[in-house]
């Protein structure tokens, strides 16, 4: 039997379960179960390039504001979520930080920066 993979389309609340049919060489030979064109496009993209935005926190060492929330500036490959997480636990930040500031450039060579999503004025400022 040809290998199969199922991808759930997130395009609308229907959540079609789309079966990807592959030929012997592993190329996509067809899709089954998508109710619409938009869904087929999504599934093909998801097969080729499954990307997600990572959101996490970075420890600050500031008792009044222990964690700085961060995100990747672009969506990154699903498989790189964990490696980037490891970096967020290691990185050192110093106040003041403003939302949008780059915390790590091109994190783990994903092409995305790790950016702050909130302000951290530090102990001098009042939240």
């Amino acid at each position, binding site marked *: 039997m040809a290998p199969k993979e199922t991808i759930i389309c997130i395009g*609308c609340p229907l959540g079609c379960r789309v079966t990807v049919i592959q030929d012997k060489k592993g190329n996509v030979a067809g899709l089954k179960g998508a109710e619409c064109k938009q869904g087929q496009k999504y599934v093909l993209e998801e097969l080729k390039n499954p990307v*997600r935005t990572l959101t996490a926190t970075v420890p600050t060492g500031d008792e009044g504001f222990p964690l700085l929330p961060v995100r990747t500036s672009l969506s990154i490959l699903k498989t790189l979520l964990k490696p980037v997480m490891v970096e967020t636990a290691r990185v050192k930040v110093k106040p003041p930080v403003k*939302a949008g500031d780059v915390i790590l450039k091109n994190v783990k060579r994903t092409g995305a920066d790790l950016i702050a999503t909130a302000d951290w004025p530090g102990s001098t400022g009042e939240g």
Partner: protein
Amino acid sequence: MASRVDVAVIGAGPAGLAAAIAAREQGAEKVLIIERAEQLGGLLPQCIHNGFGLLYFEQDMTGPEYEKAFIAKAMSLGVETRLETMVIDLDAERGITAVSRKHGYMRFKPGAVVLAMGCRERSRGAVGIPGTRPAGVLTAGTCQRFVNIEGYMPGTRYVVLGSGDIGMIMARRLTLEGAKVEAVVEIMPWPGGLIRNEVQCLHDFGIPLLLESTVTFIHGEERVEGVTVCRVDAERRPVEGTEKSYPCDCLLVSAGLIPENELSRKAGVELDPVTGGPVVDQNRQTSVPGVFAGGNVVQVHDLVDWVSWEAEAAGRAAARFADKGELKAAAGVRVMPGDNIKYVVPHTISGREDVTLHMRVTQPGLKATVKAGGILSKRFRSVRPSEMVVLDLKGEALKEAGLKGELVVDCEMRGGG
């Protein structure tokens, strides 16, 4: 209070902020937000994930980013805030009693009030799981606060009861932080949250979603040591012989939200037993004149964008009330939930102006047509109770229909879920 408050807003979440901004823009001079927490933003500071603002800003934002845009706008418009201040009473004449450590006790009567108190989470008690009372049972939102704000992991191995968005988002967050999430357990035959979250929070990380199942027992003396999970039958009763135990040191309860309406009750605001929130008209005015409501206090929203829009309507109307001392109820037509519709908000409309109806279906289904009387029908490929259905009705069409008394909204389906 030294000077008169035109519009007082209770709660500084996305609803409160949007209502206050809209009230100022509508011309209310002095707008005051009262918030019991230390900071503005309500739940948003702890919602560090993205998925906010896709409709409102047409941009994928995190909770803190979404909140920041509204806080900046409120500040630039001169909205006043009182933090760490809890409103403890509201009477039928809009009299507010609030207490704070800094300012003590205060009583005042604003020109109009906007209720924006949000929701609270259903706890283990509300769900009623038997077993011991060990440490390690907490709601998903509480856990989110610990992990995202305070930097504290409450456990290492988790079972999540309930597949609402908060539960699924926490399952992913905890996994990324290095914890093991054994399963997400859902009593209904379908997940309680958005498809996007089912895929990106559970499937991406191989976290099992156990549908038509529930936690029937919590084990452990001092600390949770595990839970028993059972399948349920069509009546949601555990099926004997299907017990399976899952070792874990934390049980997260994500079993839904309940609008926070203690104050509304005190003021004598009529509540809808289905939504758990006030009965409101098109302007989001409640049954108590001059008391308006918006956001999760009215109905549990799944998207924050609708929270903001709904609260803006409430804020604008509150400013008009404060200015004129009255605002006729937009209650010419009562909107009634019909076939497969659980509720519709607002409960009454003027029948003359444009209006947006928010509703939830009772059963999921395919090829659905949602019909508002004979005025509008809209087709949906599918509908699910977890995803709010929204209908925009045009004032012209309403006037033309010359509605008398009520408008029934039905959802017809041609396929099962």
